């Protein structure tokens, strides 16, 4: 297979000026990542700073209601409140080994921005975060968190002023600052080698979950379900289960409001088509003329018109199933899990959970279902309260 491709998807569609830092990163991945020194340092950071391993929690109340055994892989318990730190602490360590003094990162909702900022603070790196001007306004709490960790937050005022344009701005900045700066890409997408690097760092989710299932349930799960925006928590939750042919892998995208004509964020399960954006060939939400369309989801972390190339390849090969649920289904799941199990999921993770709640009667009774709870929901309380008030 061609370098950097998953099936027909992936690649390195970037200006030549970005090839040297991408090649430098490829080399670093081959040389530094497998070294004992790096692995020991990363393991220590994951244990003592991030708080891994995260729990695999059985949900007795919802399981009884649904007639299946529901398990949650608790990435909400990782430092920062989401899986994002698995990636940023690893990339920050790698950046230091490369002699870089600064991280730059894009962020949509701010979760990856916060995770980058705290990793930079931990390891003594400078940090600049590119964030769409619209997101800076609607996610002001995360902006304040990033600044508290010492990061500079740059509001991106071009295009749609959201995540898509923050990535454009970060790529542009990286062209100019590649000598001193590592681009800490936030999801398993973008040009090679980022999809591989981020998967490598997020695969700890499924490494732990697989062992925990065997310990706690005595068997492998029948289903592993995760939400998909760019797809980093999902690729991390799937990776170790991929060779286990009987484990069904389900990626849940955001269908938005579900109203005809409204934007969504589901290039795999709704009307996406292959195209090139942000350095990769993947499934995109685009016009017939190849212009990228805006996306929408109530979960800011899923609000992206593309998807990581490995997911596009898993869909093409049939190894994973990609579906979508609407904003309402996710909001109901947010409330259900909070009330029944005392765990408040992020709206992103609520999409994965919502798909299970909605479809559990179609599962074989007693099936073991693992949902990747990619983050905690405190950040979403305002959105959920508005929804509940409207519903009442």
């Amino acid at each position, binding site marked *: 297979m061609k370098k950097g491709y998953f099936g027909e998807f992936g690649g390195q569609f970037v200006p030549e000026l970005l090839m040297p830092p991408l090649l430098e990163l490829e080399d670093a991945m081959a040389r530094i990542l497998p070294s004992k020194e790096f692995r020991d340092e990363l393991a220590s950071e994951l244990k003592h700073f991030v708080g891994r391993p995260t729990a695999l929690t059985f949900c007795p109340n919802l399981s009884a209601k649904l007639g299946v055994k529901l398990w949650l892989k608790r990435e909400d318990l990782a430092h920062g409140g989401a899986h994002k730190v698995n990636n940023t602490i690893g990339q920050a360590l790698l950046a230091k080994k490369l002699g870089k003094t600064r991280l730059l990162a894009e962020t949509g909702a701010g979760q990856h921005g916060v995770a980058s900022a705290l990793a930079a603070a931990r390891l003594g790196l400078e940090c600049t975060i590119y964030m769409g001007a619209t997101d800076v306004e609607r996610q002001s709490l995360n902006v304040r968190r990033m600044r508290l960790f010492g990061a500079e937050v740059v509001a991106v005022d071009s295009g749609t002023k959201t995540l898509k344009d923050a990535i454009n701005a970060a790529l*542009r900045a990286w062209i100019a600052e590649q000598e001193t700066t590592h681009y800490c890409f936030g999801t398993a997408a973008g040009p090679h080698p980022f999809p591989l690097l981020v998967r490598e760092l997020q695969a700890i989710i499924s490494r732990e979950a697989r062992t925990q299932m065997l310990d706690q349930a005595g068997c492998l799960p029948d289903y592993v379900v995760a939400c998909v925006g760019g797809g980093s928590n999902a690729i991390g939750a799937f990776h170790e289960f991929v060779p286990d042919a009987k484990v069904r892998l389900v990626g849940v995208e955001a269908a938005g409001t579900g109203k005809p004509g409204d934007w969504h964020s589901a290039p795999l399960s709704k009307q996406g088509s292959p195209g*090139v954006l942000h350095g990769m060939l993947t499934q995109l939400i685009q016009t*017939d003329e190849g212009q990228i369309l805006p996306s929408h989801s109530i979960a800011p972390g899923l609000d992206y018109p593309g998807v990581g190339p490995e997911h596009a390849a898993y869909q093409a090969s049939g190894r994973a199933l990609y579906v979508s649920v609407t904003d309402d289904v996710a909001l109901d799941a947010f409330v259900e899990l909070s009330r029944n199990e005392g765990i408040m999921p992020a709206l992103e993770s609520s999409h994965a959970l919502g798909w299970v709640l909605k479809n559990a009667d179609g599962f074989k009774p007693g099936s073991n279902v693992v949902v990747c709870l990619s983050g905690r929901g405190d950040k979403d309380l305002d959105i959920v309260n508005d929804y509940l008030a409207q519903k009442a």
Partner: protein
Amino acid sequence: MSTNILTKRIEAARAKGRLALIPFLPAGYPDKKRFWDEIDALDASGADIIEIGMPFSDPVADGPVVEHASLKCLDAGVNLKWILGELAARKGRYQAGLVLMGYLNPVLQYGLEAFARDAVSAGVHGVILADVPFEESDRVHAAFDPHGLVLIPLVGLNTTPARMALYGADAKGFVYFVSVLGTTGVRASFDTTGLPAHLKQGLETAKAAFPVPVALGFGLKHPDQLKELAGLVDAAVFGSALIRHIDAGGDSKGFMQIWK
């Protein structure tokens, strides 16, 4: 094999003892009608090659001036079908060589093969795709080469001699050398105080690596800069400078007079 027309245009300028001038304008800028008047004026005012931008929603190699202009054109309904259709209607009208510059995705959706066929029959000689590095150029060459449509390589200050050799092996037309580590129009690479040593060295490396002329782009703001470049490059590209000139109320004819 006969010399590519883009190479010929640059060599003709060199024979006259000057740099070839390559103005760039996004298709449909400042509006869909006036754009073609400006192209006519550029051609009549001595442009050796004219670069026409194909707008894309996510232009990562461009700075704010070109991005803003491109998005404005997209809003006005500019697309590849319009660009190629209008060019086809004007075929044979221009003395200058014609190059289209943009990003892969719109071309991919048009169909690489159909695009190559339609571009050549509309009189286009070469294409620059800013997000297609050597590693991803196979499929583009496979579609363009049979039609004689040239994919113009883009290299810069951080392109090693080894990578230049990859591009140089079968380069046709000319090579586009980006003068700064940055995006279009963002900052000048040098001013009238002289050429930085690393740029001079990069240009010398490119001259040695490529069998075709070298055009310098990004960051040209003042005519005195051209004198510094004599002997180092064969052509100069003007992108955001022309857009700024038009935004300030000027026109292409006036712009070309500054640089000639």
